[in-house]
């Protein structure tokens, strides 16, 4: 069996003794063209790029990502544009994994199978569906796996031990640990030591699974969690897009600088 691009990426960052840096941006934010430019530019520093397909009722996202999502929808992003952004990105960055992230209704309306096929065709490496939890997602996840797409399960501080075991057992290469009880973009309200403690508990169940930590990660907090396999930064980036627009500055340059700084903190 060949290793997925996601696995290979984690193996590489492990050799470099550092966590993988995962970025999250919203497809179509601020425009289709701009979001592709941002992706291309930040991927110089990011190891894995998450690309959000925006939904206008995002029940787990805080203000920053909501703003990005509303902006993208207002500027006319459609789900097929999201695939086309992903596919164009992969044409120039073959070795960079891209993970689509969003809410289930978008997949449901597109049709599950059609969505998975389209992911494969666009060379999408993974999929995160925020409001489609385990075990309801088991069948869908296995369909993804058959097409070589990583379905990324989420784990939170409230996940019971019993659920945890099941989720890890049925998970693919990568698992997303939510650092705290919060929507995205919240202030890190839990001590990094505590987060890593939970992280280690998950890691002990299966050392081969790559666990990334997300929620509340910024320039200030990223270093304290650098023992993890990977760290996700989303709201901090979306916030920068908003502020660059407000200041009429170059979005691509500013966002790239942020990602570069984040990377430097964990090198």
């Amino acid at each position, binding site marked *: 069996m060949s290793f997925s691009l996601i696995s290979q990426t984690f193996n590489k960052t492990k050799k470099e003794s550092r966590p993988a840096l995962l970025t999250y941006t919203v497809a179509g934010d601020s425009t289709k063209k701009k979001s592709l430019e941002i992706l291309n530019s930040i991927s110089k520093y990011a190891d894995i790029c998450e690309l959000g397909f925006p*939904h206008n009722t995002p029940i787990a996202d805080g203000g920053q990502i909501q703003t990005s999502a509303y902006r993208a929808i207002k500027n006319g992003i459609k789900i097929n544009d999201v695939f086309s952004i992903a596919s164009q990105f992969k044409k120039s960055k073959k070795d960079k994994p891209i993970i689509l992230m969003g809410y*289930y209704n978008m997949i449901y309306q597109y049709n599950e199978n059609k969505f998975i096929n389209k992911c494969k065709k666009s060379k999408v490496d993974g999929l995160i569906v925020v409001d489609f939890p*385990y075990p309801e997602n088991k069948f869908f996840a296995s369909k993804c796996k058959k097409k070589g797409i990583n379905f990324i399960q989420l784990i939170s501080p409230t996940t019971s031990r019993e659920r945890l075991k099941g989720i890890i057992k049925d998970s693919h290469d990568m698992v997303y640990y939510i650092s705290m009880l919060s929507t995205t973009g919240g202030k890190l309200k839990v001590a990094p030591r505590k987060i890593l403690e939970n992280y280690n508990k998950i890691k002990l169940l299966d050392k081969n699974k790559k666990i990334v930590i997300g929620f509340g990660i910024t320039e200030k907090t990223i270093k304290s969690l650098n023992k993890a396999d990977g760290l996700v930064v989303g709201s901090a980036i979306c916030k920068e897009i908003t502020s660059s627009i407000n200041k009429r500055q170059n979005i691509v340059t500013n966002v790239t600088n942020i990602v570069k700084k984040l990377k430097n903190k964990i090198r």
Partner: protein
Amino acid sequence: MKLKKNIPLIDQHDKYGFWGGKFGGSFIPETLKKPVEDLTKEFQKLRKNKKFIKKRDYYFKNYIGSPTSLIKLENLSNYLEGAQIWAKVVSEANGGAHKIYNATVHALICKAMGKKYIVGDTGAGYAGKMLSMAAKKFGLKCKIFMGAKDIKRQKPNCDAMRKNGAEIVPVFSGSQTLVDAVSECMRYWVSNCDNTHMCVGSTVGPNIFVKICGWSTAQISRELKFQLRKEFNKIPKKIKLINCVGGGSSAYGFWSEFIDYNKKQIELVGVEAGGPNKSKLHAAPLSKNSKIGILHGAASYVCQNKEGQIQETESISAGLDYPGVSPIHCFLKDTKRARYTYATDEEALNAYKMITKFEKLNPSLEPSHAFAEAIKIAPKLSKDTIIIVNSCGDAKKDRDILKERLGKKR
């Protein structure tokens, strides 16, 4: 897809929480899995607990003021010269609407779970007002999420919430109405579920919230059944139970005891918000044949675009102004047990005018939608047909809108 007999509709779902295999479920972020599971277990335990039931019934009677009356609208019936029109005046309940049932039960559950904070969403402001009342009654700290647009148009209820010591959190995202209030409330719960209980204001949301709300409002039909037997000595042969449907909590509560009856004997009619005459927007996913989608943790018919973005809705009635609807109403629609239709803003206003002209009743804009349907069909029906409308809310909260739309102060 089939309804089962002798099992409450709220319990006719599969192990993943789906009614009819496709409506409902729990599409929630991982963080909420545990609190939802805890709540599910607690509710299962409590509803079998005799002491808890006794407590519930005590508060329903002594705090809510159950039973609310069933009255014949003689003047209106005579004027329309058709079916007899009756009203179950649920707006007599403490606080002025059926929302008090769900709010009281949630406050009791919150207490039983040892939580001190309770949060809820509100559209018309009734769910929020009632939750603030119940919170005050049971000593809980309360936060209400409400769309900024609704805060403006339902001021009397906001004043009541503040008076009860609740904090109103205005929601400025999206259309600034109920749909955004529910989203924001769920987000708050995601961040604070360790010490906070969430009350969903209608029979919508993840499976367990549909069940708790339906279980609470079912009191309305238990009373009605008793009152019908008393009034007619038996359940009459031709009944139509007409109820407005936004999320669908009052309609389910009004119908639950009668779902097992043959629909030729008891027809269930749900009236959604058709929006303004001239507008393409509405809040009628059932009667305008919207597609199934996922909104706020459940699959139901939802006003949405092709891509799955939730559509803006429009209605004069804040309480019906919601793009989704309860999964149990979707189930009742697909099994053809209930019939769903809509009334426009103008039809609801006309109905309000007619009701208040003929009767000593002051229904809010929500039940005015149901009265519009009753007024429409009554003249075509025989005199032995009994139409009963659930007058589930009082128009005090609509003071400003009614003044603006109908001119004089009412």
